[in-house]
Each structure stands twice: as C-alpha cells, then as structure tokens.
C-alpha cells in the first residue's frame, strides 16, 4: 500500500510518500503506526506522540482502531489547521 505523510510528519520521516508492505499481523491503523515507528529514528520521532498524529485511509479520516483491510493509501499528518 502507499503511505503518504504531511507537514511535520513528512519532515520528520524525510519522505512525502512511499510504498509499504506491512506483515499480515498488522491489521489496524494503530498497529501500522507501531510497525512504522520501529522502522527508524525519523519514524520514531514522527510517531513519538501517538495522539498528535492523525490518519486517513483512502482519504477518509480514521482512528487507531480502524482496520486497514484493503485500503490502497494511508496518510499520516498532524491535527489540521485549515481555514
């Protein structure tokens, strides 16, 4: 699946997007965050405060409990500051 990152999540990870292939044991958004956070220092810093990072699955807001299922794109970003 494709992972996309925005704002300081993007800056800390050092990538705007990447293809990821989490193991089958990663079933929820929260489990995917845990798996990503273990990939390296940038990821660990980006996800250090779990509650400061929001997620969207195929461009719809989701929470940590949401199953990833067959989603093609997952996005991680800080709380939004539009308007």
């Amino acid at each position, binding site marked *: 699946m494709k992972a996309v990152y925005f704002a300081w999540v993007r800056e800390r990870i050092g990538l705007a997007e990447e293809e990821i292939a989490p193991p089958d044991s990663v079933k929820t958004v929260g489990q995917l965050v845990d798996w990503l956070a273990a990939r390296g220092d940038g990821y660990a810093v980006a996800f250090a405060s779990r509650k400061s990072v929001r997620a969207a699955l195929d*461009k719809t*807001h989701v929470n940590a409990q949401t199953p990833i299922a067959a989603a093609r794109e997952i996005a991680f970003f*800080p709380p*939004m*500051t539009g308007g």
Partner: protein
Amino acid sequence: MVAPTVRVQVEDFDVAAEEALLTRGRRDIGAVVAFTGLCRDEDGALAALELEHYPGMAEEEIARVAGTALARWPLAGLTIIHRYGKISPGDRIVLTLVAARHRAEAFSAAEFMMDYLKTRAPFWKKTHRVDGAQGDWIEAKAEDEAAAARWATKSSDPAQ
C-alpha cells in the same frame, strides 16, 4: 438539491464574482453571508504562511462538510474556496459563501463550515518569519475543536 462549489487552488479568488455567480438571476435569495479568512502578520513577526494540503482529500472533505450543511439548513447556494501555497500577510486564504432565503440559516451554515474546515479539512500552515528563521508549523487550537464540537448532533455530525 443544491450542489456546492468547492475549489482548492493556489490562485487568489474574487469574492464579488463568486457572489454574483451564486445570486445571478435569483429572486428567492434574501441573505448572503461571505466569510473571508485572511493571513495576519502576527504583529509584524510573520513574513508569509506556507499552506500544505492533501490533494484530493482536501476537496473531498470540504465537499462532505458542505453536504452536511446543505442537509442541515435550507440553503440556496454554497461556495467554498481554499487556497494553498505561499500566502503573504493581508492576502486571502479561504472563502465561504452561503446564500439562503433567511439570514439565520445563512449565518449558521457559514459559521458551521468554517468551524469544520478548521478542524477537518487536511491543510497545515507553516510560518515563515520576518527574521528569516525557520518557522514552526501552526498548532491546532483546542478552541477550534470546541467550536466544531458545538455543532454536533446525533443525526448529522460530520465527524462521525
């Protein structure tokens, strides 16, 4: 059923032209509320804002909130334009334009749209400081969450 106009763009917008599009030829509109959000210079400290957005999701999310507003209030027209990219102090960032028969629903729908845009639309603002220092990302405000929360109802909370 009214279809909202939603645009996410780099270019500036023309409030009067958008208002004319929404009301031209109509004789059933009694109230138009136009909200324009502008970039403040934070007492001279801010050189510019850099607005990042999530292409695709930004449009979809705004359209979804607009659909909720249209279902909740009897509106004659609804336009939302949100810019991204580099924006200087004094420049326009966002427009919410609501046309309705009566003023109460026009005001409510406009304020609802802005409260939800603040907390739900995938935009992020980075500051560029006048002193040239690398600016910070603007943090989400608890008061914006509270402003959005007051619109929640069992039947029509776009956060659900």
